[in-house]
């Protein structure tokens, strides 16, 4: 029996700071994914035309690929943070499922923020290369204002964080039973086939439209935060029913 009382806040804080320093593999995978995305963005689409006295090349750039890769990275991170390799580190501290989950959520939020900021910043790298290495003229006028940058980062953060949450829930289900590794992809593929046969809009596409086609910022924020909260709470409830160290 220990006389020292440890508050949940202190435990979560310690675990979070520890995870930020210890889980460095997530950073290297983030950089790798984003560098891939940047290469995709560089390759982009280009169009060329040459007449007798005029040669025109138009290069279309977008960092959507970088953001998409970051969202995917968020999903993978959400799943893998619950693997034994990472959960074992929690037991360095006095812990329970609540503190472990809360510190994981904070860690995922921090890395999502890092990923969103770097993904949005990568546009400037493309602009830099376009302007000073490829000597291209930028046609479109406004080069992402500070307001757009902050707004874009916030929205990208919500996407990455949501993706982490979905990954976390799936990771939790896999903790209960490994059959979910097969069951979840099978359900997705099965629904695609079934919707295809019945000539309906695929369910996966409906989910995609639910978030990506939302034109109201407030509704989008509500949708992503509520879904993320649902995923994390569901994960916590499921994990709480399991032994602390399983």
């Amino acid at each position, binding site marked *: 029996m220990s006389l020292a009382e440890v508050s949940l806040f202190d435990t979560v804080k310690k675990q979070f700071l520890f995870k930020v320093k210890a889980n460095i593999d997530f*950073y290297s995978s983030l*950089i790798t994914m984003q560098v891939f995305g940047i290469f995709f963005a560089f390759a982009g689409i280009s169009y060329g035309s040459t007449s007798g006295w005029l040669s025109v090349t138009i290069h279309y750039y977008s960092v959507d690929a970088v953001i998409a890769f970051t969202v995917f990275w968020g999903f993978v991170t959400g799943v893998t943070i619950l693997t034994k390799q990472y959960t074992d580190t929690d037991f360095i501290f006095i812990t329970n499922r609540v503190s472990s989950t809360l510190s994981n959520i904070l860690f995922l939020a921090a890395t999502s923020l890092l990923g969103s900021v770097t993904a949005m910043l990568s546009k400037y790298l493309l602009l830099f290369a376009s302007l000073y290495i490829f000597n291209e*003229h930028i*046609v479109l006028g406004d080069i992402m204002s500070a307001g757009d940058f902050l707004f874009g*980062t916030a929205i990208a953060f919500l996407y990455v964080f949501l993706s982490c949450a979905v990954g976390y829930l799936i990771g939790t289900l896999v903790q209960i039973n490994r059959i979910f590794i097969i069951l979840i992809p099978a359900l997705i593929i099965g629904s695609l086939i079934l919707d295809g046969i019945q000539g309906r809009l695929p369910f996966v596409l409906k989910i995609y439209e639910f978030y990506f086609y939302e034109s109201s910022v407030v509704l*989008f924020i509500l949708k992503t935060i509520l879904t993320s909260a649902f995923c994390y709470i569901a994960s916590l409830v499921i994990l709480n029913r399991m032994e602390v160290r399983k």
Partner: protein
Amino acid sequence: MSILSFSFPFILIVILAGVWLVVFTVKKYFPAKATHWMLLIYTSVLLLAAVFVLFGIKGTEVVGNKSGDEKGEAVRIQGEIHDAIEQGKMPDIDKKFISAEKSFKLDASVLKIDSDWEGQNPYIVIERSAEIGQQVKVRIYSLTVQEVEGYALTKAINPPNIKMSGNLLLFSKPSFQEFKYAIFGEEFPINQFKYERRDGGGGYSLAEEYVIFVQIPDDLQIDEGDGVYINYLN
């Protein structure tokens, strides 16, 4: 070299020095692991690119205006030019449509006018004038519109060349030009909530049209080449 191009290396050094200073100040939080350094270098590169672009972009010759106005103006001026031709008031046309202007001394009694624009004879309007002495004055009005994704980038195009060799006045196509344009789409997290999405305006188009106005002395004879279409005002 712009001020920014000159100062960039210094900005770079200052930022890098700042990054290193932060690293060494909080060294205990930065264990010397490759991933941490990789992350640090990666974010530094992105930040440097951002700083360089945000400060440097103003110094570059960027960006077109929506081409609607320019197109409309070109169409309007086309009408104006034809009216002006009929009324002999060509010099009254707005000077911004003049893409080239030259005058030459001529001692010959015959002036040969030709062009090397294969398959597209330039339209030349000739006005005889007693007031210009032994000179030939040439003015090219450009109605050309170059459009990239709905943005007018016409000013970048060189005007046709005017050359006087002996008594031959030769018009040739503009010298070879290479344009490299970049279009940066808005990221979906920004674009998703905008009612007016910037999806571009349909690639590239070039509409070329020039009207060449030539003033010659009253008594000068004109020898028309095969490569020109000439209209005499008087």
